[in-house]
């Protein structure tokens, strides 16, 4: 079983490489189109439907700095496929090099249980959870910009900041019931 590892290859100078994993293979194309236009860092975007990645590309693949799971909340299959792919990711990635991006979070027909499940998944793995809107070009540009911020840090292109440091600030947190009660009961 091939597991993706973060530090098994050498990095390139002033380059960053991101892997977009999406079951529908729709949003990732649009994001890739915007992200490669970045000028300050040379961005390489790899697209995948799910993990594990095919072994035949192993030699040509650069070191992946950030893995982004794109989940469409309207489809249950999207979430299930993302969860199944997580097993093929090496542990080193969960120190700030994994990110979840969800679309359709404001859809009227979205069952609340699915949103809760995604938040619990992201908070359990201590990863950031970003919300994106993929239907308009503005939405895609905004989502790409946010991913580039995290990507630059994960690739080491920002001095004095590491991926682990950033993930401590941006990771998704779902407080438990006891913590909620404590927040309410403090005396003013």
């Amino acid at each position: 079983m091939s597991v993706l590892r973060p530090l098994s290859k050498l990095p390139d100078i002033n380059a960053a490489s991101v892997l977009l994993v999406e079951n529908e293979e729709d949003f990732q194309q649009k994001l890739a189109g915007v992200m490669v236009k970045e000028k300050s860092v040379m961005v390489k975007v790899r697209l995948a439907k799910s993990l594990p990645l095919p072994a035949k590309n192993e030699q040509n693949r650069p070191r992946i700095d950030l893995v982004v799971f794109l989940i469409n909340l309207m489809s249950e299959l999207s979430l299930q496929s993302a969860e199944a792919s997580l097993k093929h990711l090496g542990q080193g990635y969960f120190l700030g090099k994994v990110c979840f991006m969800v679309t359709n979070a404001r859809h009227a027909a979205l069952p609340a249980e699915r949103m809760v499940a995604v938040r619990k998944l992201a908070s359990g793995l201590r990863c950031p959870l970003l919300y994106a809107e993929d239907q308009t070009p503005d939405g895609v540009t905004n989502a790409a910009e946010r991913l580039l911020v995290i990507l630059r840090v994960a690739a080491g292109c920002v001095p004095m900041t590491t991926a682990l440091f950033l993930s401590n600030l941006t990771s998704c947190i779902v407080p438990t019931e006891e913590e909620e009660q404590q927040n309410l009961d403090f005396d003013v």
Partner: protein
Amino acid sequence: MDPHTSVARSPFSSVVQRRRSKSHRQSYRSNVGTMSHLGYTPGFTKRRLTTCRLAPKRCSTAEINPEQRALLVREWQLSYVTPLYRFQHGHLKTYSRQLAAFLVSERQQGVAAEVGLGSTLKVTFTLVAGMAQTEEEADTVFIKILSKTPMAAPDDPQKVLWSGWLTCVGGNPDYLRTLPEDFVCLPLFCSGGTEGLTALVKAWFQRTFDCCFGRLEINSVNLQWLAALWTDCHARTSIKQLKLVWSLPAEPPMEVIYAMHAQDASELWRSVRQPGLREEEDDGSVGLAEVACFFKGLKSHFYRHFRVELSAGRLTQVSTALGSAKHGGRIKISNSSYMITTLTLLTECALLKMPI
């Protein structure tokens, strides 16, 4: 400090107020289940959670009165209603006269132009007894609009143009208790008839009782709950078949109708519900995990035969002999024995969808 005036203040001071007097009105969502968080805007982050464990219902009374029978006749369109201000169950005759006058005056303005209507309309508001589950719940109100031609003899049957009902079945008692005195909570509104008349009735309610109406859709998880609860009832009342309709986002959009014999569905359900559960141990509650497992079984069976992954699509309709529910908010209850269960679930959906 008067608790009611503090409601209009900024959220921070309302948190302080809450600790002193419990009569501060809380949003429904902040009361339900795990996360209750009043410090921030209610309905914002912690707005879940639908109770994970819906007690299913063994249910229920076999005899129903004729008013309840009227609820089984047709398919209803659902909406949610915010609590009604100063709605009194004793004044139903007054309300029926007012609504009739309102409809006639609206029609004379040319708003609702219907060909062949008699010159007079008769509106009846009736109470449907036996639906409220606890003391705090208000009784169900059934509204009927009949047309009356002036030439007809008094014995001729009048044509029912429109009917609808407001109900609250199994609403969360904590929430009901926190409502201020003058408000009556009847969150589920079911309407059957022309769109024009529905809009007029809603407009009258909004004007008279200062409430808001909104569309209530049944999302896929609630449809799954309904399917599971109805299958659970098969042991006592046969549901004949379980029919599920999915819509898949293919080009062109594909609709999958998955119908199975009630016996097979029931066996799958029983095997999911804790294999080895004896009758005495069953405390009658169904968990969300069991419903998810039941559907996972159904979908994987379908995939094995047709190589079509149903999770990629959306569940849009569930129907059995006990009733049918559609994603757009249309419901039909065909059997009186499990009416209360279905209505409890729908009332909960309406309460959660309400904006306050």
